[in-house]
């Protein structure tokens, strides 16, 4: 009988020991939870002070390739608004020109991101059969590979579907730049942290459109809600046959292109 009792108390001791062990080990994770909470705190404060509820929105952009004239005003305005380096290696948005010839040759260029537009294509010997301009920017993917790979969670998807980078957290490992299939990210030469298009989030929370949309003289860029019926974007999406960039990668972009040629990638 005594033996059995001994056995029991031993069992209880062991159980208690294991329980305590787990409780102490879980303490290791406390700093993680705490800093994760403070991390989103600042941004939340700003949004709350503006009475903006991200949960009520889902943002996207439509681009009508037929309307783009390649003037590059969007590129310039973006650099101005977001204080992006003027050097020709750092772009949140840029415009590409495609020239497709009758012999199948395809020429693509984007001199300095097309910030000053394009020089007319004059000395082309062969016949161009199709030519058009394609504005590019972060696709704010619904399934973003950049967010997936960020080791510290510095880049994240907001409730309204925008992909942002918190430069305070970014350690500059550049895995996100490698993971982005669209070349939409760069390392800021000043801060040495990852940078990208934010859909001008500081404007969006104040009910303004991104600046590239604002300055486009032909309204080739349409910004708006993806899910609300009266949105200009929803109207755009209803009226056009749409395409997205590199659909096979299953990144589910929220930048939708109308009248997109098969050569665009």
């Amino acid at each position: 009988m005594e033996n059995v009792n001994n056995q029991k108390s031993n069992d209880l001791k062991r159980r208690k020991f294991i329980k305590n062990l787990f409780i102490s080990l879980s303490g290791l994770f406390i700093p993680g939870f705490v800093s994760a909470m403070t991390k989103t705190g600042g941004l939340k404060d700003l949004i709350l002070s503006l009475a903006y509820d991200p949960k009520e929105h889902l943002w996207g952009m439509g681009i009508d390739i037929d309307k783009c004239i390649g003037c590059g005003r969007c590129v310039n305005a973006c650099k101005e608004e977001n204080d992006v380096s003027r050097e020709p290696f750092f772009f949140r948005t840029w415009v590409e020109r495609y020239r497709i010839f009758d012999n199948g040759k395809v020429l693509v260029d984007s001199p300095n991101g097309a910030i000053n537009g394009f020089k007319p294509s004059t000395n082309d010997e062969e016949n161009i059969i199709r030519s058009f301009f394609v504005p590019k920017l972060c696709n704010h993917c619904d399934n973003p590979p950049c967010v997936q790979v960020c080791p510290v969670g510095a880049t994240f998807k907001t409730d309204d579907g925008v992909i942002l980078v918190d430069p305070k957290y970014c350690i500059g490992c550049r895995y996100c730049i490698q993971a982005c299939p669209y070349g939409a990210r760069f390392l800021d030469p000043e801060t040495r942290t990852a940078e990208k298009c934010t859909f001008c989030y500081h404007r969006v929370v104040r009910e303004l459109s991104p600046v590239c949309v604002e300055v486009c003289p032909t309204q080739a860029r349409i910004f708006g809600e993806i899910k609300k019926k009266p949105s200009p974007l929803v109207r755009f999406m209803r009226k056009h046959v749409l395409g997205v960039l590199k659909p096979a990668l299953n990144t589910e972009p929220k930048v939708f292109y109308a009248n997109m040629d098969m050569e665009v990638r």
Partner: protein
Amino acid sequence: MEEIVNHLVSLTKEISGYIYPNEIELHWGLLIVIYPYVTGLVAGAFILASLVKVFDVKELQPTYRMSLLTALAFLFVAPLPLLAHLGHPEKSFEIFLTPNTSSAMAMFGFVYAWYLMAVLLLEIWFDYRKDFIVWANHGKGIMKWIYKFISLFSKDISEAALRFDKKSVKMVTLIGIPSAFLLHGYVGFIFGSVKANPWWSSVLMPIVFLFSAIVSGIALVLLIYMVITPLRSKEIDMKCLDKLASYLFYIMIIDFSLEILDFIHRTYEAEESIKILAELVSGRLFVSLIVIQLLMGMIIPLGSIAAVKFFQVPSELRKSIYFVSAILVQIGIFSTRWNVVIGGQLFSKSFRGLTAYKMTFFGFEGLLMSIGLLLLPILILYILFKILPPWDEARSN
């Protein structure tokens, strides 16, 4: 800032075709080539050591402790290139505090810590424990205390305690083999899981990384053994050397087959990226991939070791052949890492153009730093050999 811009301006002349404007800056340079190279050596050397314990390969006994210490010396250095390449190394601790669980890279710290603490240090400690105690008893002055300290002040050298040591080493080795696979397979996964990059994105990547790691690890231990033994004016054990070369040969055949499979698979599937990759391989990567990695680093050493196996070769000549082959293998594996890391960034994700990589000499990510990082493990190994002599005659019996 100005330095970066000047560097990028000089690169613009090298671009062919169209690349996205943000792609001119190549983000993972020489340091990130060194990282998988060094971790590969760690994993390879450890797996070699495990052969002695788990599969009881008696011939390799002289290299057992040497391989463990080699793995340790290189493991100490493995995180340094990563740290040096960060834009903000001072924030790197965030990886431990707020790891993003979906990120392969975030797991590095944990995989590394596990491998260092739970595997390598533990195995070395248990294997050396008796020697620590004996050396502490015979030692004088500071060395006595160093040994006392690293033995964690244990004193028990009874039969039972030594039996326990032996059992523990075996246990740790058993956990160690999958851990070593994890350590380097994981490095392969960091590249292999990037779906945006067709040069990297492949399920074979972790496996190819693993086998090339074993190849480089065996070749390194072979080199160290061949250099150290004459320096200690001892005879090289030809049985051991032949066995090392044999293992090197067999693993290289697997590695070679995997690489060929990867090549055939890619060309047969001929996906969207095939044209630009073909341009890359036949152009900017031709020397480093076809000439150095394939011909010098694979076919020549394979052929030479095969020749030694088929024909009766006098031992002096055999030694030279093994030595040269092992050096060629090292160069070849380094170039393998180069071709993966740098090669994967030389083409545009628009698949319409190629860019270039220019090494800098000074600076955090420069050539000088990289040479330093490759020499540092040798220095650490020298110190380890002094403190923990791996030779048989140093063992306390």
